[in-house]
């Protein structure tokens, strides 16, 4: 969408808003559809995204800066985070077993000492590569594409991260 259209949209122009909805409703629906199963729920989520965009005199839409990211990219992020927030609000609190701190699950053990992890044991990039590979089960090519690096860099990052983890959790700390 041209900047001028966006400007008139933020100014409250009805025709600009209708054009915006017509153009980006499909994108927003696609973005939220993968998070839900039923069609109606996806449409409700799409509506919630549009509500969020125009709420408080287009407060959220005004934060968009075309110089920093494409509108489609930004809308997808906004749509999915809005959908996830809504789902979180309507769902009873639950968390994956791995996400629950061990102290809450473990049987009291007087010999157990809390594991203190060095803050910079792994770099953010190494953490993200491992998360993508092991948590999301992505393959190396997907990770490389997401991070905009070549596959060899991903392998190297993974290898270095594993060396660090082995050294830390290895013989010294069985």
């Amino acid at each position, binding site marked *: 969408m041209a900047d001028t259209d966006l400007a008139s949209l933020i100014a409250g122009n009805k025709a600009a*808003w209708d054009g915006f909805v017509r153009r980006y409703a499909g994108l927003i629906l696609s973005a939220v559809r993968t998070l839900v199963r039923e069609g109606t729920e996806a449409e409700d989520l799409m509506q919630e995204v549009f509500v969020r965009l125009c709420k408080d005199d287009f407060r959220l839409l005004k934060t968009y800066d075309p110089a920093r990211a494409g509108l489609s990219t930004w809308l997808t992020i906004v749509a999915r985070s809005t959908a996830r927030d809504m789902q979180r609000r309507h769902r009873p609190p639950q968390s994956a077993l791995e996400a629950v701190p061990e102290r809450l699950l473990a049987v009291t053990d007087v010999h157990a000492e809390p594991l203190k*992890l060095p803050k910079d044991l792994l770099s953010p990039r190494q953490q993200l590569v491992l998360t993508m590979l092991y948590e999301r089960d992505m393959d190396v090519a997907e990770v490389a594409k997401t991070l905009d690096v070549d596959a060899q860099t991903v392998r190297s990052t993974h290898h270095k991260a594993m060396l660090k983890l082995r050294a830390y959790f290895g013989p010294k700390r069985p």
Partner: protein
Amino acid sequence: MTEPMDRAEENALWRHWRTAVVNAAGEAAPAPDPLLVAAYAEHRLSEAVAEEVEAWLALHPEAIEDVLAAACSKADALATVPDAALARAMALVRASDPKVMPFRRRARPGVTWRIAFARVGVAASLLVISLVGFALGTDAYSTLINGDQSAALSQDLFDPPSGVFSSFGEESSS
């Protein structure tokens, strides 16, 4: 990438590290600005800023899907949106009718002064009427008390002529 045996061992190492990180993280960090995540998805961030986003993504694997979805989002290849859902979203912003003039109270500086003047006029006329009425009443009373007719009138009032009730007395006696 690695042999199955190594993969299992690496996975276990990852889980171990992950649990320790989640334990150490405590309160969830606030989500970065959607524009920042969008810029990250388009690889527009500097290394230092990208690291911040990556550190957050490593702790929020579900948001990695958002980045992937945003990176391949295009406004053209989209889901079809039902007309009713489109209309519902469009209705969020109302059209302003050019025939309808916004209601505004005209600022009339003379109004207050005029109202005050009218009120003073009404009060003054009420005062004049009451004074005149009082004066007229006083004159009438004086005339009655001091005039020639006063004796006759007072006699009529307090000592009515005997003829008035004479027939009545006669009838009753008979």
